């Protein structure tokens, strides 16, 4: 073998060795199971963590108790007489005493979508109103079905909330974008909130099936207008009296496309709201001024992908009841300053 041939062989060996090394290196680096993630830049990542984090100083409430539910998928909650806790879901309504012991249940024909219990001032206190997608069923506390109320023009009907006043019952319809007004016997008296420029009513914007109505101590209704990130106050006749709320991911605003998803009103007029996306429950004054946070995403949606809003209710003790659908329980919150 002459020198040139030898040099050639060395070159070839080196090239082959380099090729083998490169091949092995690349095989080792292949991430076929995707564990290294997508390797896209940070501009391609959707980040809500900054907004999900809540300053602990803002949280003005502490969890006092938990009422476990034996339900697969609880959907809605209401507080009844003597602070009893009523939860609907799994095609049933479950009744609990204030301390959480279960006292009874009512079977339903379909999945409930909203729930309310009549208070002391009502003609028959303790009546349970359950909305099932397109109609309302009325039960006595012992489970006897009293009436079934149909909604006019039920094609687009999607009932999402019921509020019971002393003489009237209000049913929010996310499909028709208005609140139906009934008397206690189920007679339809009219509707509230239809877009009407002459009465200066902008109309409800409800892009997703969360649309809540609640009665307030001042005699006005509080209706969430989620698409506008507002809470609006209507008279029972349908006049828009006031509205408040602003959009924004920051804690004092209503986040995302459409919030608040649920609301509840204390006897002193303060409003508790529940939001989806950044799952948080907050307290606003009767004037709409942000007060503090009841509970934030860390507790309600530890994983960012869990975004459904929990239904909320308040009781006469000044406590907030949050329906945690994932953990299937009711979390009871007490204001820290009142402890």
């Amino acid at each position, binding site marked *: 073998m002459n020198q040139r041939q030898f040099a050639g062989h060395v070159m070839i060996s080196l090239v082959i060795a380099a090729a083998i090394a490169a091949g092995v290196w690349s095989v080792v680096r292949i991430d076929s*199971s*995707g564990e290294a993630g997508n390797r896209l830049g940070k501009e391609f990542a*959707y980040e809500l963590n900054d907004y999900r984090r809540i300053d602990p100083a803002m949280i003005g409430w502490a969890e006092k108790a938990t009422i476990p539910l034996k339900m697969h998928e609880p959907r809605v909650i209401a507080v009844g007489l003597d602070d009893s806790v009523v939860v609907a879901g799994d095609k049933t309504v479950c009744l609990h005493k204030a301390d959480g012991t279960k006292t009874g249940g009512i079977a339903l024909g379909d999945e409930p979508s909203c729930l309310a219990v009549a208070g002391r001032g009502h003609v028959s206190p303790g009546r349970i109103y359950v909305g099932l997608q397109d109609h309302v069923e009325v039960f006595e506390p012992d489970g006897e079905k009293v009436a079934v109320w149909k909604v006019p023009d039920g094609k687009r009907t999607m009932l999402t909330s019921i509020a019971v006043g002393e003489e009237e019952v209000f049913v929010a319809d996310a499909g028709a974008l208005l609140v139906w007004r009934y008397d206690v016997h189920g007679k339809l008296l009219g509707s509230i909130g239809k877009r009407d420029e002459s009465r200066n009513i902008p109309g409800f*914007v409800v892009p997703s099936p969360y649309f809540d109505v609640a009665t307030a101590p001042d005699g006005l209704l509080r209706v969430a207008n989620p*698409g506008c990130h507002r809470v609006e106050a209507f008279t029972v006749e349908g006049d828009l009296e006031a509205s408040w709320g602003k959009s924004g991911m920051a804690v004092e605003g209503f986040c*995302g*496309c*459409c919030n608040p998803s649920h609301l509840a009103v204390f006897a002193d007029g303060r409003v508790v709201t529940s939001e989806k996306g950044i799952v948080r429950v907050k307290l606003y004054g009767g004037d709409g001024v942000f007060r503090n946070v009841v509970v934030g995403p860390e507790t309600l949606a530890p994983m960012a992908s869990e*975004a459904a809003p929990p239904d909320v209710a308040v009781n006469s003790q000044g406590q907030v009841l949050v329906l945690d659908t994932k953990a299937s329980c009711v979390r009871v919150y007490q204001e820290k300053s009142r402890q």
Partner: protein
Amino acid sequence: MDEKEKRLRRRAFLGDSLRVAGALGIGGAMAALAVRKGSDEKLVWQLEPSKCIACGNCATHCVLDESAVKCVHSFSMCGYCDLCTGYFRPQPIALNSGAENQLCPTGAIQRTFVEDPYYEYTIERRLCIGCGKCVKGCNAFGNGSLYLQVQHDRCQNCNECAIAAACPAQAYRRVPASDPYLLKVGPQQG
């Protein structure tokens, strides 16, 4: 014909029989496996939107440089929001189509005014790279009307889909080629 030639011929015959038997065996086995379930339907890869977590692996693990997976919009599920969280960044400065407000890094979503207060959003397929950012935004706050699908004009239908292997949610499966999409559909209007 002498003894040796006879023996050779016998051997050749034996060999031929064996080969023919082997060929028939291979053919028969393949046929048996192929007709076993009677499923002669061609299958293609698709991803199940209800399992998808929009992790972004679709954008980069496809064997194609420009992934076969792109975003699809279900018009019948959309809320037609003014503030669409699949279109706008989490804290937009204003609700207009200015680049500073848009979520999509490649600007692949178009926003058009329909009527007060509704806006319609459409995906520009050419620009979409399937990163799923808008899907996350829509799922977090909205109705989940934006979702990812394998686009069959691009998909090479690999024997083992590289994205399927890398999918953390194991959302990929094979579907019949005659019905190759797993579309999200809400109730139609009216």
